[in-house]
């Protein structure tokens, strides 16, 4: 909306109707009302269900891998199957779970609400993105049924052009899922730019939205390159076009450039939305304005940008020129700066806050610990000389699990618990939620800390057997993975239980200040009965809460009419930072 004009709006407080009988979950019924819905909340929920299934599948595979590693020789899986399983684990976790996890599921549900909009800018594109994602998943499943893939999730040439497995269908699946990711990105950028409600200036946008904005930018700029890379790989296999295949005069290192030009930024597609959730959790549960709003907001953009300059740190031993290795190593250290800025701002926000350690906050604390370990080990890996020793060892495996699982997954869980009452209108059992969080935290470290040690001692990744010296540590790690399984089972039980037996959730169980807490739990179909008007920052906990529930006064504003469902839209809303009142 235009920032022009400072016309005075007539506003008033809109009280929240607690637990309205009609909400987005039940206002229409039947399978079709879900599959063809244009409601961002329902689409988000379908995404949520899909990624939970993906996470379950990927998790089962992981436990299988860890169990195989119980003994130094083959335990119950042969080497070839092992290669298939770790590839599947990686592909499922990266493309089917973690990339869509926070943006497409939680982001979809909350982005419009937090902006005060009725929906994303392009609801049909949003639905299409979900269907395209599902189509990609079908391709992935097809590949599993037709021979599987044993290249690793990175599909490096020349192995990927030679192996007998179903590389074409799998890469096509990833290619298709890339489109879905692009669609989400385009949609979110347009939504954030054009769909803000009156008074929602950039400086009043919740930090979760800033992080989704930065993420969308990365998705839009990086994913097309993955698309062309995978397309070239498919052509390489199908026709032998010789661009990446050394047997035909091609250059496999060029493939790695293409791949990592996407995939390093992609790790920020995974982590930046997690940063956004952490910002929300930390302020809400400290009852305090966030420290360094702009520093956090802009560092997301800085990370998005710098993330495009460092991809070659995955290629130090690939045979790229020494000059580029040195440059990449140098640039890699810069990524740590905006990331460090964020962590310090979060910690400073905690200082003298009135902290309440509810489950979501517990996850935020876990995130701070684990992500910091993951990030710092990343910097260590970025040092060229150190990397030559550690490349392709368990040290790298531990590093990226600390950032991807310790960072993104734990932030996702924090967000899931934070918004669970809003999404489903039910409270979960706080005691069991905390028990499971603590188990997951301990289990995670039991699983992955030993991998740092093994890795630095030379245990290579992607092997199904190993020398006996490593057995103790592998066994500790395997026990940890089983404990992780237990933690997740507990979580599944109490979450499902809450859906049936949980207490009804109030509209604002945690005392948040952002707009999603200013509507019912679960929200009504059009999010708000009124057009919200924002006059305070998103974390102004010192201001009275009723000043966060304002909307345009008058009855002709959008979807205020129960009687005819879709109301008229004739009024002109000129937004501007000055709303004239207070």
């Amino acid at each position, binding site marked *: 909306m235009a920032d022009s004009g400072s016309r005075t709006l007539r506003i008033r407080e809109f009280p929240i109707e607690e637990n309205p009988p009609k909400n987005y979950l039940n206002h229409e019924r039947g399978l079709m009302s879900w599959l063809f819905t244009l409601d961002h909340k329902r689409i988000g929920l379908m995404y949520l269900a899909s990624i939970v299934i993906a996470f379950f599948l990927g998790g089962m595979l992981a436990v299988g891998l860890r169990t195989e590693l119980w003994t130094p020789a083959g335990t119950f899986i042969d080497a070839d199957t092992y290669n298939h399983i770790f590839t599947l684990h990686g592909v499922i976790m990266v493309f089917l779970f973690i990339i869509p996890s926070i943006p497409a599921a939680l982001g979809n549900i909350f982005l419009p609400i937090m902006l005060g909009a009725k929906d994303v800018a392009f609801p049909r594109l949003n639905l299409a993105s979900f269907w395209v994602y599902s189509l990609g998943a079908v391709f992935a499943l097809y590949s599993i049924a037709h021979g599987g893939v044993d290249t690793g999730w990175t599909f490096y040439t020349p192995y990927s052009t030679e192996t007998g497995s179903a590389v074409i269908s799998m890469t096509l699946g990833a290619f298709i899922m890339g489109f879905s990711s692009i669609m989400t990105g*385009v949609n979110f950028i347009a939504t954030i730019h054009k769909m803000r409600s009156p008074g929602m200036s950039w400086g009043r946008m919740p930090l979760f939205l800033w992080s989704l904005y930065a993420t969308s930018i990365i998705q839009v700029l990086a994913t097309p390159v993955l698309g062309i890379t995978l397309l070239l790989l498919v052509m390489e296999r199908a026709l032998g076009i010789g661009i990446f295949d050394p047997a035909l005069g091609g250059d496999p290192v060029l493939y790695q450039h293409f791949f990592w030009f996407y995939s390093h930024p992609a790790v920020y597609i995974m982590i930046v939305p997690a940063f956004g959730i952490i910002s929300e959790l930390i302020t809400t549960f400290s009852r305090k304005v966030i420290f360094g709003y702009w520093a956090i907001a802009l560092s997301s953009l800085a990370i998005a940008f710098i993330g495009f300059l460092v991809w070659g740190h995955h290629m130090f031993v690939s045979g790229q020129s020494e000059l580029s290795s040195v440059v990449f190593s140098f640039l890699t250290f810069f990524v740590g700066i905006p990331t460090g800025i964020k962590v310090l701002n979060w910690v400073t926000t905690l200082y003298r806050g009135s902290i309440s350690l509810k489950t979501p906050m517990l996850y935020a604390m876990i995130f701070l610990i684990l992500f910091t370990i993951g990030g710092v080990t990343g910097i260590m890996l970025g040092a060229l000389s150190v990397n030559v020793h550690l490349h392709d060892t368990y040290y790298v495996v531990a590093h990226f699990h600390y950032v991807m699982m310790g960072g993104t997954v734990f932030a996702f869980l924090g967000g899931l618990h934070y918004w669970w009452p809003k999404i489903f209108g039910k409270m979960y059992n706080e005691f069991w939620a905390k028990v499971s969080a603590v188990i997951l935290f301990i289990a995670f470290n039991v699983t992955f800390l030993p991998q740092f040690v093994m890795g630095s001692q030379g245990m290579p990744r992607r092997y199904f057997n190993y020398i006996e010296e490593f057995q103790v540590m592998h066994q500790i790690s395997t026990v940890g993975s089983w404990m992780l399984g237990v933690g997740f089972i507990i979580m599944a039980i109490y979450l499902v239980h809450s859906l049936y037996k949980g207490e009804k959730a109030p509209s604002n169980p945690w005392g948040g200040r952002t707009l999603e807490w200013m509507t019912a739990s679960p929200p009504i179909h059009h999010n708000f009965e009124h057009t919200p008007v924002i006059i305070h920052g998103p974390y102004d906990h010192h201001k009275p809460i009723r000043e966060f529930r304002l909307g345009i006064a008058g009855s002709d504003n959008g979807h205020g009419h129960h009687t005819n469902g879709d109301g008229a839209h004739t009024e002109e809303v000129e937004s501007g930072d000055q709303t004239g009142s207070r």
Partner: protein
Amino acid sequence: MANNSGAAEKEAHLAHHFVDSEQQFEASKLGMWVFLVTEILFFGGLFVAYIVYRSWHPDLFEQAAMTLDTTLGAVNTGVLIVSSLTIVLAVRAAQINDQRQQLIMLGSTIALAITFMVVKYFEYASKFEAGMLPAGLYTYEGIEHELAPVFYSIYYMLTGLHGIHVIIGIGLISWLMVNAAKGTYHSGYFTPIEIVALYWHLVDIIWIFLFPLLYLIE
């Protein structure tokens, strides 16, 4: 799900979640520009492959470019330029509520796009016949360079992907014509024409670069 507010007749196109037509138009256009960015980077990957291989083997590119027909390339450049003009005039026709001109201009754009593809077809056919195929299938013997097949791979990937975009464009513009015939577009609402036109111009721009990069190397 109702998408039309039905508030006033001329607002029938306004989706329920927008405040007004202006917001809808601006949002759609921004969305399209962002999409064009993804298109540019999609082709960008191929241009990178092109640049890397050309920097490695300048002599190969010079020799191989000789096998491409400059005249046909130039003709197709002209064809696309005119088609860009016709589609922009279709937008203008909608802005001034001239339905007949809208249809004429959209129709001409399709005709020009088809012309482009026909020319491409003849180009491809003569290349195929001579055995200048992508690397795995390459049989031509006129070029003394062991990486000659890779040049043709890059050539076919670039022009082929561009051709696919032209075909998609033909589909989109045909869809516009169907709607235009029903009188869907007028000065208050022409977002789809505007959006497809943006796409079509991008297809033109890509060719503007492909032409000198492939046909005019010496």
